[in-house]
């Protein structure tokens, strides 16, 4: 079942192509624009660090956690758009329909991205540049090509389901801001359910708690 996160349960898994779309959307939305050709002639944006990409991906895959972040912001800013975005996540039953569980490793939520990235790399949509030397990789840099950006737009135009990725990635990117991967992970750790998930287990959803929180705000 979709909401069952136990080991051996029928955990919903995204296909490589879905993951490729999701990652492309993340890199497109959260990447830092590049204008001076530092990373190559066709590179338009760069996203530093795999940990950051994994952290962004976590919010892409756990709509309830993202909604919780939106409510945190709303609590601070009282921006009704934030409340509206959170409400829509629940209205669209995203926690049921859009959640793709991740496993918790000792450095947080993680999923090997190689296969999905290969799809993006094969057509020159995203280029992965590692810094450091082989065996001691310091950082992965995800370079978005202009073809990658135009592809994202084409995908979004091809189907509303895929357009969702681009819009969601924009929200995630805004929530994450310029915060680095480690700090984002720490923020995600603040949720008891995340933090208390045993290693190598699927991270538990916080749907009902966030729904109650949302309803409390809506009633005010």
């Amino acid at each position, binding site marked *: *079942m*979709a*909401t069952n996160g136990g080991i051996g349960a029928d955990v*919903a898994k*995204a*296909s490589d*192509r*879905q993951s*490729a*779309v999701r990652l492309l959307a993340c890199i497109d939305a959260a990447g830092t624009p590049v204008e001076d050709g530092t990373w190559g002639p066709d590179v338009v944006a760069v996203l530093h660090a795999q940990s950051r990409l994994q952290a962004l991906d976590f919010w892409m895959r756990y709509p309830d956690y993202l909604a919780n972040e939106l409510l945190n912001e709303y609590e601070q800013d009282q921006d009704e758009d934030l409340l509206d975005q959170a409400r829509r996540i629940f209205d669209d*039953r995203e926690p*049921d*329909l859009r959640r793709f569980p991740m496993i918790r490793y000792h450095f947080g939520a993680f999923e090997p991205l190689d296969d999905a*990235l*290969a*799809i993006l*790399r*094969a*057509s*020159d*949509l995203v280029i992965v540049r590692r810094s450091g030397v082989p065996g001691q990789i310091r950082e992965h840099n995800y370079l978005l090509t202009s073809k990658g950006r135009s*592809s994202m737009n*084409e*995908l979004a135009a*091809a*189907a509303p*389901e*895929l357009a969702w990725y681009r819009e969601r990635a924009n929200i995630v990117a805004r929530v994450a801001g310029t915060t680095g991967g480690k700090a984002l992970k720490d923020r995600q750790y603040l949720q008891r359910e995340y933090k208390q998930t045993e290693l190598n287990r699927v991270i538990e959803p916080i749907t009902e708690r966030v729904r109650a929180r949302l309803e409390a705000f809506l009633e005010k």
Partner: protein
Amino acid sequence: MSLGWLEAVAARAGMDPKDAELRLRRLGIAPDRPSRPAPTLTITRIAFKGEKRGSIEGTFDFSWSNLGPGVWAITSEKNFAGKSSVLEILLWCLRGSPKNLQDDVRSWLNWVSLEFSVDDQQYRVAFDLTDSVPAGNLARLRSDGTADELDRFASDDGFAAAMSGFMMRTLDLDPIPAMHGADGEKQAVEHGWAALSGGLYFGGEHKQLLGDVLMAGLPARMLQMYIGLPWANTRMQTGTARKEIDQEREHASKAAAKSAGEATAARERLGMELETATKLLKKLPTEAVSAEQLKARADEVAKLAPVGTELQVKLATAEVEATQLRSVATADERGLRDLRENIVATQFFNGLEPTCCPRCETRVTSARIKKESADFSCSLCSESIPAEQLEDTSEAIAEAEERAQASRKAADQADAFIKSLRGQVVTNRHALNEAQTALDEAVRSTAFQKRREAELEVARLEGALRERQAPSVQLEDHPDAALVRAADEEAKKAYDRGRGDILDALNAEILSLGQRMGVQALEEVKLNSNATLTITKGGAGTSFSKATAGERLRLRLATAIALLRVGQVRGLGRHPGLLIIDSPGAEEVSEMDLSTLLGELKAIAKETRGLQLFVASANPSIVDQLGEEQCRVARGNEYVW
């Protein structure tokens, strides 16, 4: 043949004489004792020693022996010479307690002895005094002078008890029963020697014919006792017992009357309350909820309750099913969405020409690309691209859509079913509540309840009233009341019968003695059994209490001596024949009168067996009348002792 007294009493009380006798004895009632002559008390010697202190000092040792019947006098030319003290010491010895002995005289004494005879038997009471406390004994004296101690004492109370017991026994006197105290709270008491000895003493103001204890009824009883009127004592005993029982009964009847009054008040109150409660009950509707109605309402509850349970079970089952269906629908929806995303993405990604190997980033050659479109050989890995991958995907989407639609419909239907079930549950619950309430109301409808309460109240009040109407407890007679009444009646009868002409004989004797003793113009005396003496003097009727003090003294003496003389003639009476007269001169108009009185008393004593008189007088001229040997005289400033 007439019945004996005890037989008559027993017959009157309806019991056998033996039982009656026992019970009367317990009540202190005894049949009259046969008439018997009175023992004669005669003083034979009085002696005392001591030491005077104060204004006069010196030891004294008084002794007056060889006394016997007749008139004996103590006299002095001046007052306060010890005359009265001799009489008082004599009285103290006889009574066991001093009468009017002055405290200073008592404190001077250290030894006292009185010898006396009762009929032919000699006795002696003698005691030492330490700090005025007597310690000594009472003894019977043999003719050879040997003393046999009868009793001993070492205190005032012990002395009094010893003499009282001895005198009552030896002089054969009966204690006088009486009721004493305020009305309604009288106690039965007995007057013993201390009161009876008053019959021997003639001093003071002579207020009473006999004795000196001022107590209602006592002089009369003393008189009756000393006269020895047959049945007088029994009558006193029955009278006292009767009064005691009557008083008890009166108390009980007062208490009963009080409680009866309270019961009457309670009955009235309860009656009014009952009337009110009965009225209320009558006003209440009699038709209670019918059994049919009750049954219908109970049936309704019984019908609805299991329906509710059934609905709850159905609802729970439906909820489980709905949850499962919703999960399936969600999964189907996800599946459809995944399918669409994958198809679109795959078409997009497949539509892109590979430019480099994602692994080694080697650029893909145009030859490889051509080969792929011609041979379905992957331009990256040269594997053949499976044909089905390019198949029309619309069929798969249609199928997934259909499935998602079906499962969503099923889930929606399940939800709708739940909604309907919930509605039914609510409806059932309301209906059940209503039915239960209706049933409850039927069971304890206010009218029903009120009627029940009113019935209970009426029943309670009726019960309380019945309890109060139980006949008030009949006053229980004292178990011996009938017996005492019978004894009293019979004692009165016997007394009236036995009294006969004794009083007439006494009156004649008193009149004669009174006249001899110089009561002027005394024509008639009439002694009543209540110890009042009416007299006719100089043609006019008067009474003892209105006579002069001198006349009263003479009448008292005449009465006492008459008791003795009549008693001796008839073999009855109880006066022991000893008269102690203190200061008769005080009442005398002239010395001549006293002298005459004593002369006459001397003559009377001579003709009256066992009569002994002691006179204390401040008139030495009486010595001429009585003779020196009969007197102790203090001449001039001398003291008697």
